[in-house]
């Protein structure tokens, strides 16, 4: 039973505030905000998503820089509340097109309308964007997505490849196009977050892929969809042994550790031909989440070196090699490296002819930062830095610096080799031919090289 739901801005302003049961004492939003803001200040730790103050349980998620919070007096499932908060954020995004402080403030009445239907007397009701449509009477007021900083995994498609209509993913599910006609289209995004840890000798210590097949449908009339994945897709760690004859010949079969599915997905023929059948509900939702710890080729090789160069100096060498095809380009790459706390200055030396690269020494956090706008597959980039220390080093520099951490996004590339073989939409008529977009993207979750 949820007592209250509210959304707070980064400054603690109430954007929406709904009390469902009138049992939590006044000022709960302020109590919450103070607690989160000043959680263990000395250690600069983040407040956990669930905590209890004076018998009131506060559960929150951070979405687009906003706090989505529920309070409850009873001992209920924290996962239910956290999932629900994420879902409310997603449904709101479906309606508003863009989810941020500005769009919420402009549409707060619509959000109240949604909240009225999503939760009644603290009990979650429906969170389906589609089912909610008949109860929502406000028209969303659109904010200009172009001028806003991109948010969320979908935003990455706005830059780069021209084939994709930039505004499609920030389009409201309910609002009509300026022309009055709704464009029939469907987006299927394969988003993979990869985590790799390299040892100091370049050996891969751990590697994991957390992937999602995300769908956003603007199709009218809810046609059935067939989504076919790799035929030789294996699921479960043991499945590789049972399909041995296949993988030995192909050599490249994809084996997932585990996966889960959205409830609209029919798995009747999944075991036979790896095809998912579903009638996609409106709005954005994950068709399938999967996890893979099978070895894969990491998109980047990172090498980092730090060496003493005199009593209070050191030299750093960072090298990145892009191990993916030349027709693929990674963008917004950031490489960060913590340096010894007694580092005073750093001077950088980029490779000759470097374009779109910037470097910085963050004095507050003692980090070197190297930004690259894009990296073309197959290329290699290096950065040299000279560090000046305020004291003499005592021996082991590698224990005082690192690890190197890297962030990147690679559109039209997926490390797991999981493929959508085809996306079939049940035809309503001969002329019915909606736009389909199948897009791949790989993001760094934790890409670390140790010194």
């Amino acid at each position, binding site marked *: 039973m949820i007592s209250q739901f509210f959304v707070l801005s980064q400054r603690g302003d109430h954007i929406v505030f709904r009390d469902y049961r009138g049992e939590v004492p006044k000022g709960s939003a302020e109590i919450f905000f103070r607690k989160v803001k000043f959680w263990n200040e000395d250690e600069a730790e983040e407040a956990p998503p669930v905590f209890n103050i004076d018998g009131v349980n506060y559960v929150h998620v951070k979405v687009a820089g906003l706090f989505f919070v529920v309070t409850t007096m009873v001992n209920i499932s924290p996962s239910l509340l956290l999932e629900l908060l994420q879902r409310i954020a997603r449904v709101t995004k479906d309606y508003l097109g863009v989810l941020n402080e500005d769009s919420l403030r402009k549409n707060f009445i619509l959000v109240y309308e949604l909240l009225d239907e999503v939760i009644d007397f603290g009990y979650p009701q429906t*969170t389906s964007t589609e089912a909610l449509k008949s109860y929502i009477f406000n028209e969303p007021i659109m904010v200009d997505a172009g001028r806003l900083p991109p948010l969320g995994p979908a935003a990455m498609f706005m830059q780069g490849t021209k084939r994709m209509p930039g505004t499609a993913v920030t389009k409201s599910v309910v609002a009509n196009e300026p022309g009055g006609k709704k464009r029939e289209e469907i987006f299927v995004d394969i988003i993979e977050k990869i985590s790799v840890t390299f040892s100091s000798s370049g050996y891969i210590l751990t590697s994991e892929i957390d992937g999602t097949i995300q769908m956003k449908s603007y199709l009218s009339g809810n046609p059935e969809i067939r989504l076919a994945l790799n035929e030789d897709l294996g699921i479960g760690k043991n499945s590789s042994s049972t399909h041995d004859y296949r993988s030995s010949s192909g050599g490249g079969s994809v084996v997932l550790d585990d996966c889960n599915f959205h409830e609209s997905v029919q798995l009747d023929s999944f075991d036979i031909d790896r095809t998912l059948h579903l009638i996609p509900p409106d709005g954005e939702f994950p068709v399938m989440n999967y996890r893979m710890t099978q070895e894969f080729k990491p998109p980047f090789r990172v090498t980092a070196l730090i060496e003493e160069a005199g009593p209070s100096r050191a030299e750093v060498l960072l090298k990145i090699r892009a191990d993916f095809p030349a027709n693929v380009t990674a963008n917004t790459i950031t490489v960060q490296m913590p340096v010894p706390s007694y580092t005073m200055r750093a001077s950088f030396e980029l490779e000759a002819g470097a374009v779109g690269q910037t470097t910085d020494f963050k004095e507050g956090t003692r980090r070197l930062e190297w930004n690259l706008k894009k990296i073309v597959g197959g290329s290699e980039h290096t950065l040299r830095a000279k560090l000046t220390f305020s004291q003499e080093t005592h021996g082991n520099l590698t224990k005082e610096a690192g690890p190197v951490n890297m962030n990147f996004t690679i559109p039209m590339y997926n490390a797991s080799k999981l493929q959508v073989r085809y996306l079939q939409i049940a035809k309503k008529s001969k002329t019915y031919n909606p736009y389909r977009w199948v897009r791949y993207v790989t993001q760094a979750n934790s890409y670390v090289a140790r010194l």
Partner: protein
Amino acid sequence: MAPTAPSPAKSASPSQPSGKSEVSDLKQQLRQLAGSRAPDADDQRRDVFKRVISCMTAGIDVSAAFGEMVLCSATSDVVLKKMCYLYVGVHARAHPDLALLTINFLQRDCRDQDPTIRGLALRSLCSLRVPNLVEYLVTPLTTGLKDPSAYVRMVAAVGAAKLYHISATTCLDADLPAALKALMLSDPDAQVVANCLHSLLEIWTLEAANSEAAGREIETLYSKPVVFYLLNKIKEFSEWAQCHVLELASKFLPSDNNEIFDIMNLLEDRLQHANGAVVLATIKVFLHLTMSMTDVHQQVYERIKAPLLTLVGAGSPEQSYSVLCHLHLLVMRAPMLFSSDYKSFYCQFSDPSYVKKLKLEMLTAIANESNTYEIVTELCEYAGNVDVPIARESIRAVGKIALQQYDVNAIVDRLLQFLEMDKDYVTAETLVLVKDLLRKYPQWSHDCIAVVGNISSQNIQEPKGKAALIWMLGEYSQDMHDAPYVLENIVVNWDEEQSPEVRLHLLTAVMKCFFKRPPETQKTLGATLAAGLADTHQDVHDRALFYYRLLQYDPAVAERVVNPPKQAVSVFADTQSSEIKDRIFDEFNSLSVVYQKPSYMFTDKEHRGTFEYSEDLANLTVGAEAPETVISAQRYQENDNDLLLSTSDKEDNGIRSSNGSYTSTYNAPSDLLSSQTPAETALINPGSSTYSTQTNFSLDDLLGLGVPDTPAPPPPPALALNSKPVLDPPTFQKKWGQLALSFSQECSLSPQGAASLMNPQSLIRHMQSNYIQCIASGGQPPNYKFYFYGQKAGAAAVYLVECIVNTASAKAQLKIKVEDGTTADAFSTLFQSVLSQFGRS
């Protein structure tokens, strides 16, 4: 319809209206618009309503505009209606008279042709929360439950619970629960069924305090026909309702194994659901159903591992946090099962600190012979991390693994390497660990001492690390060549030492050193004792005095006290009792798992959730005895974060064992006191509590407040109770059934006591402080019911009490049953005297 065009500046900044003048301005505008028939009047109204609601959101009191809002609400515009209902729902409570004005059009809307309007109106009508309007709710609710539209029935089903909260009798008199039950078992719409279930559970759970029939109704909900009916429909429910049905199913008691397997087969595919809450709820069903089947239970663990690990990576960090908390609980119960998945718990760069901390705890728990090397290697990487809190936690984790006895050899080497890193916090944490390790593995002292001896105490700022170093200097002064001189240097700076903990350790270390190397330490000892005696900190002063007198009395005795032969510590204290862990496991998939506390420790009785609470003795929740164990556990932790008995405690043990006669004379030193629970302290000084109450009385009088008009408490009885009686709920129940009633009476509470009962826990605590424990309690204001028990000191005989308190009349009905008839009167007198004191101290 196109979006309205309010002035953008106003709608874009709902949170900065100017307050009072804004409200009167809005009232003005509403009044003008009330009767307006202008074509754009609705648009204008929308604009003003929006501003009112934006003020409301920002926390500005807009209740003054209530009348005007109501006047404007006679409209056919749905958006306007909704805004108005939202406003009325928030403010009706404060304006019951004006709320009456809205009843009319809400009732009319409840009969609208459009089901959306009917549902909307009914929901708003039930949300008014005005007690004197309940009569208007019954008819729309009864019709609503029979409405052809599922949407309206859905709203009505929740509405019944809302009505119950406003007026329980109205809800019951209208026989709404019966209608809900019928609807739950017949309605084709899954959400209607789910809402009926929500409401029934809520109503009967609250009602159970007053009627036995309600308890039976709850049992029906958990019965096979209902549970199976709901489970068979599971896929029709929304994911949230699925969670609720699964929660119900987890409490179901199957009659045979076939039922268990039927349920598990039916729910198998729920483990593949993308919603983590559904998966966890399913896991709870599986775990609880198979509790009695060890093999299947193990299979369940194997089965749920992969889905849980997938959930950790799939969602937002907040979602993975909750899943990780549950994994943590499982890992603690079955470390072996996860030992090969240790890499899943490595910290990732992007993890927030609350996730990293949990992962470190899991790595500690699953470390065993096969994976310790890898885990410790990984943890050592974090130790040099820029993230200082995580670095600290990682070092502690390494230490804990070492204490678990796996691969100690390599770990000691690693720890000693930490000392060479020369980062102050790393050194401090490591010293604490080395100290603990040495107490468990004295054989490593040579290797460690060699390294520790090279550390300068000047480089360590943190008290814990410094204290650990000083302890080692004292303990191993025979092996550390310059120990006396190092200690001397520290003593010289006595006045600059801020931490009393360090000064206490310094006193003891110098004493130890003195007995091992007297000629070199004598001078320092004199200086130390002098400094200690002059210290302003009470504990430090007392310990110095204690040592001084001990030395005066007999140095040989002093040596036995300070330097007794020590045994290596083999087992260290577990901070949480297994009973508490089991209770947390019972409450799987709830906040208890996140807080690592059972629900009674953080939730009010009345909010303990639909499943935890039952008035029936058979399902009574354990009341107050457990919190005490926890308090002492926490206290223990405070004293002693390093998991082992702190040095001072151990010395005290030494005192007790080596020379019993000193214990009674010297029980003043602070650490002895602090390690005792208040109850024990009181035990040493019997009668102190009654004494203090009496003092309070006379003080009251002196201050001219007058003697309270209630009769003075009876004189303290002679009966002594056991401070820690032991009785579990089943035994209580059995004995209560067996024993004859030996005493039944009504007695009165002090007015203050009755007022304090706003929080029933306060009475439980009060009784507890007089050694009367609560085993179960329940009820709603003004009626509370408590079951207490006590035990005669030094005997097994128990006293059982049922105590029904009415706070309005400040009266309590007592029923007492005793095992030992001779002390029945003494106990009842004692109980009444304690009860009458409640609220007065």
